[in-house]
């Protein structure tokens, strides 16, 4: 098998048409992925948010993470064997496949949501309530924006896993990019297998890239650490405007100033120097 064979597979018009063509397989694959993520989100997000918010039933998160150890392919066959005879249609294969993938997607989403909500500073939450935000406002204006980075990283990892694993749907005679792998294996068409793998990898990377872009747009720079980089560069090149407060502010109320020999150790400027390192520590 050569690089030329791979190129010619990708450039063969026959591989871009019909049920077995790349566009159709990619669409099917994305459909499985989207459906899986949608169901997993509906289950994991409210549950994770509730656990994070209330601090109760944390074992759910641990339990879900432990469930990751279950082998997906084995589970798929098991579920198909039990569910298959009960349903008389194509759904007999669709339902087990999606169910198994949902099971795979739930742990990262659940722990991402839980950890995100749990990471909201109690003081910020307390202040939000104390300033007169309603429960819904606290959730939407404070908790969700603060939880976003951890939630989105859960979503990214769930998406990657589902795109990669959705190939198994083909093993129970469904479509998707897995077809190229299963059919290729059956007919010893290794070029087709490699090309299928490349498609899965590219799809995963593109999806991850899109989510990364979304993350960049949706997460406040105050949380993502982008502001920290700004702060660091400012600390390196301090301009006059960003001087910590009080640097040139005489203190009219302090009636007892220490008698010091040089201005450089005066109480006012001591404050200025305590401002900067703590700023640096945080970043």
């Amino acid at each position, binding site marked *: 098998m050569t690089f030329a064979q791979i190129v010619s597979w990708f450039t063969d018009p026959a591989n871009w048409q019909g049920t077995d063509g790349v566009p159709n397989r990619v669409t099917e694959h994305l459909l499985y992925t989207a459906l899986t993520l949608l169901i997993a989100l509906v289950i994991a997000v409210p549950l994770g948010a509730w656990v994070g918010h209330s601090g109760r039933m944390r074992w759910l998160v641990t339990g879900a993470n432990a469930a990751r150890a279950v082998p997906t392919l084995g589970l798929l066959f098991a579920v198909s064997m039990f569910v298959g005879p009960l349903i008389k249609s194509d759904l007999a294969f669709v339902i087990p496949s999606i169910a198994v993938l949902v099971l795979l997607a739930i742990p990262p989403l659940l722990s991402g949501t839980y950890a995100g909500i749990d990471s909201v500073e109690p003081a910020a939450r307390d202040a939000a309530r104390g*300033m007169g935000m309603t429960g819904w406002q606290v959730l939407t204006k404070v908790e969700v924006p*603060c939880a976003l980075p951890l939630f989105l990283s859960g979503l990214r990892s769930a998406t990657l896993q589902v795109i990669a694993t959705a190939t198994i749907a083909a093993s129970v005679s469904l479509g998707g990019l897995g077809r190229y792998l299963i059919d290729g294996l059956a007919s010893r068409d290794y070029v087709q297998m490699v090309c299928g793998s490349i498609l899965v990898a590219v799809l995963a990377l593109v999806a991850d890239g899109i989510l990364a872009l979304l993350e960049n747009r949706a997460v*406040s720079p105050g949380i993502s650490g982008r502001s*920290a980089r700004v702060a660091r560069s*400012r600390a390196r090149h301090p301009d006059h405007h*960003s001087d910590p407060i009080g640097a040139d502010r005489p203190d009219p109320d302090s009636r007892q100033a220490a*008698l010091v020999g040089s201005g450089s150790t005066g109480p006012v400027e001591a404050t200025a120097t305590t401002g900067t390192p703590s700023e640096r520590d945080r970043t």
Partner: protein
Amino acid sequence: MIRFEGVTKRYADASGADDGAGSLAVDDLTLEAPTGKITVLVGPSGCGKTTTLRMVNRMITPTSGTISIDGKDTASLDVAELRRGIGYVIQHAGLFPHRTVLDNVTTVPRLLGTDKRTARARAMELIERVGLDPAMARRYPAQLSGGQQQRVGVARALAADPPVMLMDEPFSAVDPVVREQLQNEFLRLQSELGKTILFVTHDIDEAVKLGDQVAVLRVGGVLAQLDSPAKLLADPVDDFVAGFVGRDRGYRALSFAAAPELSLTDEPTVRLGARADDVRAVGTPWVLCVDDDREPLGWVRAAAVETEVTRTLLHRGGTVASVSGSLRALLDAALSSPSGRGVVAGDDGRLVGTIRAAEVIPAIEARRDSTTEEATAR
């Protein structure tokens, strides 16, 4: 005015059975925080001071009793509306990390429906007012120091111009130097704004410094004493309060006594760079060094000067009292001075003269006599 009437908070005990045997956080508290004044709640941990504060904006619901603000029972108001009308400042500031300083400050006005531009204009004003550089408005909380965050916290609480402020240990998470600066600016701000403030701290020094009146609570949420800071230091009602207000009470109470007009001694001075002969010509073992504006720099030991007075030779231990300061500052200046002569400066920072401890003591004695007479007259 915030008024507590027979307010009790009882938590159910661990078993969850609320049979009246649960632990008491606040016990039948009756207290008034007068309009435009700072009332400080102080006490050891477990005395219910934070619980008391948080019952005002109903973050905690009292078990019994009523709390009213300007005559209105807080329990009768909509809880979100009540809270939006009360400034709330907490330890660690509790800023929203995903919002800029400016957007943090506009939170409550925006909740109240003020349009964005008006809210932002007012917020910028407040940011400057609490002593922050306007350029900080665009920063995020993570880019600020602890002290700066706390200033933003105060600005945020003031944004909707609430008549009442609740402050829960707002300055206890910053280092002592910054804390003192924040306290001083807080007092300056309050002298301009005249809010009705309920302030919680565990630090009796802070309570005494900031409070117009101080309520000392004991464990179990019982009000032990409610008095002016001076009265609290001079006349604790029982051993608990006496123990809590701590040592050096007599000395600390002098903080509240303005320095009377005492005759100061003119002090011969030298400048930096003065020659050894000139320093010795003054004739005293310690000679005061001032800068070109006659602001005191420090004492120099005449015998230690070999060629001329340099900064490294200056003794840095002495404090400077202000003519408009307190008796405590005056006495401390005298006690901390290596020459025994306390340096006194005018409000402009320039040297006025010196005073010895022995000359301050009669003023303290005279003050004691006058307060005793007052007490007997009453």
